[in-house]
């Protein structure tokens, strides 16, 4: 009997003290103006070019990565994409740098381009999307690379307090190798915030088109972009989601995984290049259309440009660009 009051008291203590702060919306208006510079017509051509060059590329050596269901490891290409992305950055006026990490046939070739900040250049906002792909990879991950390139073009018209670092990571499909080596090598030490994208161009307006993600309940219609964060990125996850929805940039659904995101129930949230950023305490958000939980062409030869929703991709590109402008603090 004497334990009951103590037990009740402890329960009360455990479930109180939840924190929730007011969201800072002060930078929304200015950030959204940067998104206005996104040219819708130039996004899909990037996807088509990526798919085209991959068709003539040689597969990556898949030693150690046996092909399996939805894992056609003998059809992964990256060389032509590295060249195309580097050339795209150069054509916009960036100094593109290919950072090679690791050795042998599975060395990772990360393409990096920076737009240097004006007042706090040592603080970096990382924008990442992987360039390797199975088959044509229109959605996975041509859509995200195209969104990143268009955002890179749009932000060149503005100046920002922080440096914006665009990275096309390599070998994500073999286990986020490019981003893992990048973080492990210490290159992410100056990153204050990050946006990582993986598949952002497939949408469906049909009921039942969106599956639940490993037990996590999702809306029935797959017409939204997921914005995933963890404890460290909860605030920017809320901001990016609220800004994108309230200004009609795209239809966004924000979610945060508990802690650093590594709990077993949220393992599905860890499947891309943001994983090691989360584990190293770097505030990062992950943008995705839900991959195989929505797109029936995931990791198949049918992942082609015609299956994408250009207006959905364009909206997501605007939301991305505004998010970059918000985090990098666009200057007047």
């Amino acid at each position, binding site marked *: 009997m004497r334990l009951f009051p103590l037990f009740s008291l402890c329960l009360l203590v455990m479930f109180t003290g939840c924190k929730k702060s007011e969201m800072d919306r002060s930078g929304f208006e200015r950030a959204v103006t940067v998104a206005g510079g996104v040219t819708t017509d130039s996004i899909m051509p990037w996807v088509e070019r990526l798919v085209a060059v991959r068709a003539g590329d040689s597969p990556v050596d898949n030693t150690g990565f046996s092909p399996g269901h939805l894992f056609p490891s003998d059809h992964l290409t990256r060389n032509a994409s590295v060249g195309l992305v580097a050339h795209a950055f150069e054509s916009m006026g960036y100094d593109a740098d290919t950072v090679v990490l690791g050795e042998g046939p599975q060395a990772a070739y990360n393409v990096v381009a920076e737009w240097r900040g004006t007042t706090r250049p040592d603080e970096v906002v990382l924008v990442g999307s992987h360039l390797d792909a199975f088959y044509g990879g229109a959605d996975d991950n041509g859509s995200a690379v195209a969104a990143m390139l268009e955002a890179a073009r749009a932000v060149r018209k503005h100046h920002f307090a922080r440096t914006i670092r665009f990275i096309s990571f390599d070998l994500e499909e073999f286990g*986020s190798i490019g981003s893992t080596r990048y973080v492990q090598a210490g290159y992410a030490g100056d990153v204050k915030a990050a946006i990582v994208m993986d598949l952002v161009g497939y949408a469906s307006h049909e009921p039942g088109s969106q599956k639940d993600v490993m037990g996590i309940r999702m809306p029935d219609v797959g017409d939204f972009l997921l914005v995933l964060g963890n404890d460290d990125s909860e605030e920017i996850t809320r901001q990016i989601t609220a800004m994108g929805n309230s200004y009609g940039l795209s239809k966004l659904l924000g979610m945060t995984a508990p802690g650093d995101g590594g709990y077993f129930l949220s393992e599905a949230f860890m499947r891309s290049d943001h994983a090691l950023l989360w584990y190293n305490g770097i505030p990062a958000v992950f943008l995705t259309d839900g991959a195989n939980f929505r797109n029936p062409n995931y990791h198949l030869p049918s992942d082609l440009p015609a299956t994408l929703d250009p207006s959905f991709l364009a909206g997501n590109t605007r939301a991305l660009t505004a998010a970059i402008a918000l985090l990098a603090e666009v200057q007047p």
Partner: protein
Amino acid sequence: MSCFFIFIPAIQNLAMNKFFVFLSALIFLASTSDAQQERKPIEIQAGFGMLITQSVFSMQNGFAPELAVAKEFSESLAWQAGIRLGLNPVLPEAFGRLLVRQRVGAWQPAVGLELGTTRRTRFDAGKALLRETREAMQGTISPFYVAVHAAPLSFGIREKWRLSLLEIDFGTHFSHPGRTLRAQVMLVTLTRKF
């Protein structure tokens, strides 16, 4: 508001600290509730069960025989210390437990806290896919873990023996609580008092 949030209270840092406070208070109350202190026998116990360890991109399971020595502080408070082999592969673990036990006739359920050391998050680096990421993620996990322990189906048999079925452990490593989870079900545990 389009955000919604997943919350797992038992593995949040804050909640875990509060849990420790709760458990400490529970043990204190239990230890002071015993009016008469008498010399308690040493107990030897052996058990056999299953152990599951989960971390991101990694899950292992196997059989886990364990051997422990135990002694009661009082009628309702006891400590245990032991080793667990954890088969598939064989990776020994060492642990200590502090238990609160209630006696209702032959029924002697117990609940408590287990602290231990293990390398059981780092041995499965063989699979190439995600290996580098997984190793990087697991590199900062300490070898020490904490778990709650419950023995709901524990029964005294005559004076010298105790039989316990389906004892449960559920815990996580100290560093980055929740990044790893361990669950253990001891199918049967037999205790002999000396």
